[in-house]
């Protein structure tokens, strides 16, 4: 019986409904100190002095640490996944409001929080810059004096020490002859689109606990999506070997990219090192808004289009507002730059994508790795072209869409990518051929579609072990972090299918770098494919060992030994273990590792014959109602079509996509980090409004297209981010369809819609 494609509750379901699920915020250590972070009140300033005497004198306060204290124990206290640009605590200057400046340690959290308010920091203000385009100008104030790329990346090395710019990385894609492609017939369209800075808002805020165990061992418990990276980065900072650092990760209360790479772990470790006691650094929901965010973007797209609607040439310029520290922004800039021209056959493409430093909360990866921002631009642009040329939006896309086997602008062929099927199913589900109710009175109704493509991040590695105990029970050790996507269950399904064991009887251990092999990180919808392949290889490895033992025990020829239904050569796993070890004893360990073969893109042109191990395709359609008196948009129905490969746990996969749709709807209609003079005015859930049950459309129709991916474990590929790709432009296109109002900046707030309606009638709205 196959375990593949049967929907099942996640393995940890019971613990999640009875309150016993283990999150890092529940953890305590003996003699543990609690911390509160003192944060910068200035967007850009030199640190003139830190007076912590009053805080230090407070009863219950252990100590107050500054960047100088950290620099005493960690020689080069700068971290980051792409650039080593972020100080553990600010040194010499601050670069955004909310940047950690000092850390108060106390016996209890409430004491630390109260004392943090007593720390007096003085600043000498510098001119700040907040906008990504303004920050790219030659005379812009400089956020960093020079660039500090991490030494591990060959493609960033040339940037080391570059001075006088806020552009951390400028990546280029050149396909065909984009310079010559603008002459000749047809029409040229040019538009500029903006997406806003938004917050991830996992309901569990970041928390890390660090303890030095003996003189040469560091243990960190953290809600991180990147246990292996965190170990590597902590070891680098301490000048230690990786095997001296242990990172333990329980369930995450949401991640969405906010908990990728390192966030609080180095701060907790530095504080524990100085204090000589375990330190817990936990932040509040408000503080999340000063920790990480999704990039705001400005995107300019220019297209030449012939009389039949065919796209002939496209030039895209993208500016990514990376905030004060690079985090993984340069990689977002690069990877999403690759797909910025859209999922279309265009003979000449030029993309220029720039990661820009500004004096805002740093921006990193968030559910789609920059793709939703790009899809908003190219799919709004597509509908603007359709409207201007009088073409049907589906028909325009049909004529231009890349088909499986076509050459993408990166020089890589689309393989196992159901672009056409996604578009056609979207049209069917939207009942596109039928007219819709256009509303009456003060309500106008409309509909829109959009489609996006993503190349999964590469090159990356996952490794896993699958082991058998003396009783034959199966344990999977792997480093993919389950933050609600159901990855542990999927790994159990894969191992269970390979060994003929019910997944519900398999233990998938939480990541612990002392026990679980390397994984690049839980990000970019890569886990089912990469870790799934590693788990499959490990399960097959242990199965081979079992079969060899079975052959020995039974005296059969190894070729005649078969394995099915949890038995090998008719024997249970326990019987084989007992017979081999002379008792119910021993451990069998199977190991698997997976690194897909890809080719690094040419640094000047972005071209590569194999840029990704798999493509993801997501299409969305929206039917909306607009109240023309208030400008308020109500989404009545959303269709989301996702190319899933084979869904290993189909209902869970659908819920992943649906959850992505809901999150992206928030970012489409309401969410926005708002600043005044560099001060964020709406941190926290009281002011920053995320979707509630009332904001969710009554009808979210998620459709999975399932064709086995040839390289995926049991045909599976990644799907987690797909739901986010096309939601925003689908709604923006529906708004234009309903009202004629085209809004080129997210969110599609009632105010912008109302303003647009008034302008379209030749009236002004002050």
């Amino acid at each position, binding site marked *: 019986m196959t375990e593949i494609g049967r929907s099942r*509750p*996640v393995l*940890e*379901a*019971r*613990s*999640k*409904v*009875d*309150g*016993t*699920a283990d*999150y890092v*915020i*529940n953890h305590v250590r003996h003699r543990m100190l609690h911390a509160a972070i003192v944060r910068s009140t200035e967007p850009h300033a030199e640190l003139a002095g830190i007076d912590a005497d009053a805080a230090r004198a*407070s*009863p*219950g306060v252990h100590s107050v640490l500054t960047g100088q204290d950290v620099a005493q124990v960690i020689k080069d206290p700068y971290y980051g996944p792409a650039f080593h640009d972020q100080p553990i605590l600010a040194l010499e200057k601050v670069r955004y409001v909310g940047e950690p400046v000092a850390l108060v340690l106390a016996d209890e959290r*409430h*004491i630390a929080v*109260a*004392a943090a308010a007593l720390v007096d920091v003085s600043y000498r203000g510098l001119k700040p810059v907040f906008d990504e385009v303004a920050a790219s100008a030659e005379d812009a104030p400089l956020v960093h004096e020079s660039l500090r790329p991490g030494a591990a990346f060959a493609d960033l090395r040339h940037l080391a020490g570059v001075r006088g710019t806020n552009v951390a990385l400028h990546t280029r894609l050149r396909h065909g002859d984009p310079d010559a492609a603008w002459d000749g017939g047809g029409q040229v369209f040019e538009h500029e689109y903006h997406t806003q800075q938004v917050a991830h*808002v*996992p*309901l*569990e*805020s970041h928390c890390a606990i660090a303890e030095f165990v003996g003189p040469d061992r560091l243990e960190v418990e953290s809600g991180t999506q990147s246990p292996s990276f965190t170990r590597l980065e902590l070891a680098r900072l301490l000048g230690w070997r990786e095997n001296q650092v242990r990172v333990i990760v329980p*369930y995450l*209360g*949401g*991640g*969405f990219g906010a908990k990728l790479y390192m966030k609080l772990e180095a701060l907790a470790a530095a504080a524990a090192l100085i204090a000589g006691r375990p330190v817990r650094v936990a932040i*509040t*929901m*408000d503080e999340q808004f000063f920790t990480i965010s999704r990039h705001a973007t400005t995107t300019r797209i220019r297209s030449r289009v012939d009389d039949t609607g065919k796209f002939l040439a496209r030039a895209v310029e993208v500016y990514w507002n990376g905030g004060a520290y690079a985090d993984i922004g340069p990689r977002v800039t690069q990877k999403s730059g690759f797909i910025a021209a859209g999922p279309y056959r265009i003979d000449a493409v030029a993309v220029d994508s720039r990661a820009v430093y500004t004096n805002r909360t740093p921006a990193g990866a968030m559910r789609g790795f920059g793709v939703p921002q790009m899809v908003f631009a190219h799919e709004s642009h597509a509908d603007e072209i359709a409207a201007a040329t009088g073409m049907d939006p589906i028909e325009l896309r049909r004529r231009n869409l890349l088909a499986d086997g076509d050459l993408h602008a990166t020089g890589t062929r689309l393989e196992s990518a159901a672009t056409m099927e996604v578009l056609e199913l979207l049209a069917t589900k939207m009942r596109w051929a039928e007219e819709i109710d256009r509303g009456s009175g003060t309500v106008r109704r409309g509909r829109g579609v959009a489609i996006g493509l993503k190349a999964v991040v590469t090159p990356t590695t996952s490794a896993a072990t699958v082991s058998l105990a003396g009783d034959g029970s199966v344990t999977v050790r792997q480093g993919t972090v389950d*933050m*609600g*996507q*159901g990855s542990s269950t999927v790994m159990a399904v894969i191992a269970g299918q390979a060994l003929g064991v019910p997944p519900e009887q398999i233990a998938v251990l939480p990541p612990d770098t002392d026990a679980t092999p390397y994984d690049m990180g839980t990000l970019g919808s890569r886990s089912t494919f990469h870790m799934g392949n590693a788990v499959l290889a490990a399960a097959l490895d242990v199965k081979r060992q079992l079969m060899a033992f079975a052959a020995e025990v039974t005296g059969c020829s190894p070729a005649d030994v078969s394995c099915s239904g949890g038995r090998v050569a008719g024997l249970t796993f326990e019987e084989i273990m007992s017979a081999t070890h002379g008792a119910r004893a021993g451990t069998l360990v199977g190991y698997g590792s997976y690194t897909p073969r890809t080719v690094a893109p040419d640094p000047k042109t972005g071209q590569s014959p194999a840029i990704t191990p798999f493509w993801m395709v997501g299409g969305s359609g929206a039917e909306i109602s607009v109240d023309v008196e208030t400008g308020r948009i109500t989404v009545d129905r959303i269709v989301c079509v996702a190319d899933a490969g084979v869904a290993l746990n189909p*209902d*869970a996969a659908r*819920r*992943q996509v*649906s*959850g*992505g*749709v*809901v*999150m992206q709807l928030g970012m489409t209609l309401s969410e926005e980090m708002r600043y005044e003079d560099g001060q964020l005015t709406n941190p*926290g*859930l*009281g002011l920053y409004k*995320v*979707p*509630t*049950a*009332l904001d*969710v459309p*009554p009808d*979210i129709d998620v459709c999975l297209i399932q064709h086995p991916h040839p390289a995926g474990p049991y045909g599976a590929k990644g799907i987690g981010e797909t739901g986010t790709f096309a939601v925003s432009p689908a709604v923006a296109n529906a708004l234009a369809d309903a009202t004629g109002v085209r809004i080129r900046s997210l969110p599609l707030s009632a105010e912008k819609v109302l303003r647009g309606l008034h302008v379209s009638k030749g009236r002004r709205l002050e």
Partner: protein
Amino acid sequence: MTSSWTRITFTLNCRAVEAQIRNDETLLELLRREFGLYGARESCGQGVCGTCTVEVGGMPVSSCLYWAVQLDRAEVTTIESLSRDGALDPIQQAFVDAGAFQCGFCTPGMIMMCRGLLRDNADPSDDEIRRWLTGSICRCGAYPEIICAVHAAAAAVKSDAGR
């Protein structure tokens, strides 16, 4: 900074308990610090997300905003008391069956809110469920499944009562 302390007695999950509390301590802090009950969790810290929901005197409250000193002689019920003899409560079971969570962080609070709804309204409509849950945020976006779970739980409670 010093805190003053008070001794209180109250009923926690049907058991009489005593606790020495800080006067500025919240019910949420008390549950976690003194009783090791981790089902209620802080998220927003402002009473808008519902992640810390427990019942006091049979009413759902945000325990992050509820002072522990207000508890004297009150009855407090948390998610930990819902399952009996290893069997899940009908709402918990409905959440499992509908897959009404992803990360699970909001789930105990969400279930405690739904309990309050079903006590007042045995057969809520979609719209009534949505309105009741506006103070319970699920960032993973599992609302469609949560609404299904509430309907299923309502049906299960009704059929239990009919037996």
